[in-house]
């Protein structure tokens, strides 16, 4: 399951960007982007987000 980003909860700390083991997450001016081709659905970002702004369930 890929992460889904909840922008209402996100505090823009980018912990997920740095912790993604395959560097599939980018913080752009438009918001958080998850590269579907790179993402391995490992769940690291979902677990380490300090406020719970990433959830399981992405396509």
């Amino acid at each position, binding site marked *: 399951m890929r992460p889904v980003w909840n922008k209402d909860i996100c*505090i823009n*700390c*980018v912990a997920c960007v*740095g912790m993604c*083991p395959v560097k599939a997450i980018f913080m752009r001016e438009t918001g958080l982007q998850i590269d579907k081709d790179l993402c391995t659905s490992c769940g690291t970002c979902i677990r380490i987000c*300090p*406020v719970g702004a990433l959830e399981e369930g992405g396509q």
Partner: protein
Amino acid sequence: MKYAERWDCIIIGAGPAGSTAAWKLAEKGRSVLLLEKRQEIGVPVRCGEGISKQLLKMIGLEPDSRWISSEMDGAIVYSPSMIELKLGPEIAGPEVGYVIQRDRFDQAIARRAARAGARIEVRCEAVAMSRDGKGWKVRIRDLKGDRTELASTVIAADGFESHVAGWAGMDTALSPGNMDTCIQYEMVGVEVVDRFTEFFLGRKKAPGGYVWCFPKGKDIANVGLGINATMVKDKADPKKYLDMFIENDERFSSGTITEVNGGGVSVSLPLERTVADNFLVIGDAARMIDPLTGGGVYNGCYAAVKAAETLDEALRSGDLSKDGLSPFESRWRDHLEDEMARNYLAKERMIEISDETLDKVVHAISEYDLKEVNTEELLKAIMVKYPEVMEEIAL
């Protein structure tokens, strides 16, 4: 500052390390382009905001009330059962410093860089780079669109997110045990200990990490925590732990949260190599954060100064290859790596040891006539009081 056809150096990331490198290189007359992805340097703050006075001396920045919130004389460490270890000015050593406003501090260093002649562009992101005969072609994106800039060398100073080093073929991936996830509130209406930073230890408060309180004013403080990524069990654990800590301590529970920030911190050994052909990596991107304290500004800026020194010499000699830039490795490692290695081992123990043992460690040190804070002294203190604990924490 006008454009260069080919920059001596493009620096990616205008945090304290990137801006210090830009400042020191520009001061030597080098053409420097400093890129910052965000529209405002230093924003958002992702930091506890404590710095040592030693840092300012090292980079040559005068203390300035425009970015200093308060001055610190020492630190207080609390064990899981709240045994207190007070490290006053006579022994606190590098803990003596300031709590600052990191956004304004970062901006102050960037201004130094600009005044020294560096060109700074904000809201300007490096999106890719590739080798050309004389260095790098860097693809840059700003509001006007994409363009390419040429550089003899590139310094990656893009922080914990660290995408750029990967473009130069370096692996910056971290295992979960080598990362902490952090959250911090700036609070008003809290009871601080004047001129002291505070650190609260214990698995129930911050598993594998610690809670901090850094006073920014008489009733204002940064209250935050870091948790080792392997110790996170449920979604949003860091926030839950911090809320619980605040609720359970009446010094903080009646306070008001005026700002929330967070971030990731590496608690690892530094990258095995920080040099490639026409390329250097410094600061959080090079995993230079102290793995025990989570502090990164001093180490990053120290490496920045050494990077500028090395690049200037290499530009003069004309050898910008990996070998030509290799003096950078020993220059920063000689000063930082031993302590990082010791603190890495200490952090590994911190994750494993029980609260009971941690109580004994803090108790032993608090009763010992500590002359200064170093590993040898601390181990001696524990040896005297609880020799049986030595085995458990043996480094």
